């Protein structure tokens, strides 16, 4: 099919100047006007803007003043929050991403078996994802309540000491990461879609050769799923690195700086202290950080992802 398309395309390229294909191209550009405007004015120009503005001192009232790289120097040498915010953001996203991936892949594998009312269960796992984030964190703040909350009650039944989930600086990030895992129902759906594309023959062949369930998982399912694992890892990473709602609704960055996410710090500088240039410097470092993570993932992915039948993009 793809091959046939390509030959058709190649054939068309030869008579490229035909009025038919000109008309088609004009129509295509018309259809792409919204996306073009969006990519220009909502995505890439503001991205350039972040970089540009980060070299200015700009508060709300006066005109911007160029101050070379002073914003960046201050960030890394003087700012009492910034270094902590990088650590918090990385720490949080690493455990949230790993937790979400393990949880969602496990559930997807289970849901991929022949079980009764599969559609119903699939829907149940997706429900947390459709709840508004602000409400989710508010609801969970009661579950995490130190004295009357559900989790400390369960722990007390198991004979474990109370944990101050949201007020202990060492517990807060794992507590918030657990909520992220709970919210990752969308990953389950994407994993399920991928699992349904794994050819059964491989698994069956391995079974005939005497591979047990675990071996089949490691040597058949994981390699076939690797492109989707890569995709989900990236998506989950982008989601969790820009986590900001828990800090806005519950923690205000505390206790101490223990939930001072980079995006929250950026928000505070931009909209509470009106320091737009400085906030852009944070955004820019944040962007570089995400770019580095993405690049590492893509670079290493060549060694662990597997595309069936070569690259068919």
């Amino acid at each position, binding site marked *: 099919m793809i091959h046939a398309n390509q030959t058709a395309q190649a054939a068309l390229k030869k008579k490229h100047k035909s009025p038919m294909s000109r008309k088609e191209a004009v129509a295509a550009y018309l259809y792409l006007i919204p*996306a*073009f405007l969006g*990519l220009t004015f909502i995505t890439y120009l503001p991205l350039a803007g972040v970089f540009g503005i980060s070299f200015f001192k700009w508060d709300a009232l006066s005109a911007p003043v160029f101050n070379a790289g002073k914003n960046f120097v201050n960030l890394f040498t003087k700012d009492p929050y910034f270094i902590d915010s990088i650590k918090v953001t990385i720490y949080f996203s690493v455990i949230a991403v790993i937790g979400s991936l393990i949880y969602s892949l496990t559930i997807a594998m289970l849901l991929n078996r022949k079980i009764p009312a599969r559609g119903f269960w699939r829907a149940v*796992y997706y429900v947390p994802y459709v709840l508004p984030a602000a409400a989710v964190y*508010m609801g969970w703040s009661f579950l995490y309540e130190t004295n009357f909350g559900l989790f400390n009650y369960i722990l007390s039944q198991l004979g474990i000491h109370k944990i101050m989930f949201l007020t202990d600086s060492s517990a807060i990030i794992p507590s918030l990461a657990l909520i992220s895992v709970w919210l990752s129902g969308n990953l389950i759906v994407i994993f399920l879609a991928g699992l349904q594309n794994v050819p059964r023959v491989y698994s069956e062949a391995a079974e005939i050769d005497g591979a047990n369930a675990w071996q089949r998982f490691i040597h058949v399912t994981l390699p076939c799923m690797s492109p989707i694992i890569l995709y989900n890892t990236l998506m989950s990473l982008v989601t969790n690195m820009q986590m900001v709602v828990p800090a806005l609704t519950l923690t205000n960055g505390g206790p101490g700086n223990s939930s001072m996410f980079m995006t929250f710090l950026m928000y505070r500088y931009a909209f509470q202290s009106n320091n737009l240039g400085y906030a852009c410097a944070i955004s820019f470092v944040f962007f570089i950080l995400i770019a580095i993570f993405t690049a590492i993932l893509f670079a290493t992915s060549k060694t662990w992802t597997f595309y069936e039948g070569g690259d068919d993009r």
Partner: protein
Amino acid sequence: MILNSSSVSSQARRKKIADIFCFAIVVMAAALVLLPIWWIFRTSLMTNAEIYKFPPPFFPKNWLFSNYGETLKYFKFWQDFRNTMIIIVPSVVAGTLTATLCAYAFARLRFPGKKFIFSLCIASMFLPPMVTLVPLYIMWTRGLGLQNTYWPLIIPYFCGGGAFNIFLLRQFIMTIPRELDEAAKIDGAGSFRILMQIIIPAIRPAMIVVALLLFILIWNDLLQQMVYINKPENFTIAVGLTIFRGAYKSDWASLMAATCMTFAPGVIFYLIGQKYFVEGIVMTGMKN
């Protein structure tokens, strides 16, 4: 012969036990996933005295739906809900339609620069919107004077509805046999007619998926709404709820009632669309 068949049946039995075991895990994990929601709901129906009881009861003694009435006196749910809908309805409609247009161009039409534009589009999927928050804020407020309006929250959705959605629809359109539009083309149909009469009817489930994803996206957003909306009468649900929490910090029954109210619309929309929803994502065959 006999040995062989008995080993086959024992294998079948082992498989059956494994199936039952997996089903049990699915059910238990689903219960765990729903437990927080139930706990929030049951708390919303209790008196504050009952909330502080130890051990905490699993069911409320009296189902105090009156808590909701009390909460509504201070939490302007209906006003906030209306405001949220003013943002969501045009955004979802425009986002879905413009995403369809773009996806159609990428999936079916040939034009110079296609690869380049498409990769720009895909790359933007990995660009967190948080990065560009401040320049966009400057553009909307200083540049265009749109502070305290909903426009900065709506207009972006008129611009393609997000790279992921374009990608999803493109994948879906590519599964439709090309012969259909080739035939229409021979009959003299232009690309727009092919889109309206062949493509859109065929991809309706995927468009519903996109509409729901956009709904969830906006429904979930708090930061941007906080940045652009300052007047209490313009608050959206997310902003209203956050402010409400600030004012009623320790009144757990009211807080949980407010939380449940904001849960409801999303869940209802999801239950309506759920049939198409998960199927649609599965059907697009997210191969790469």
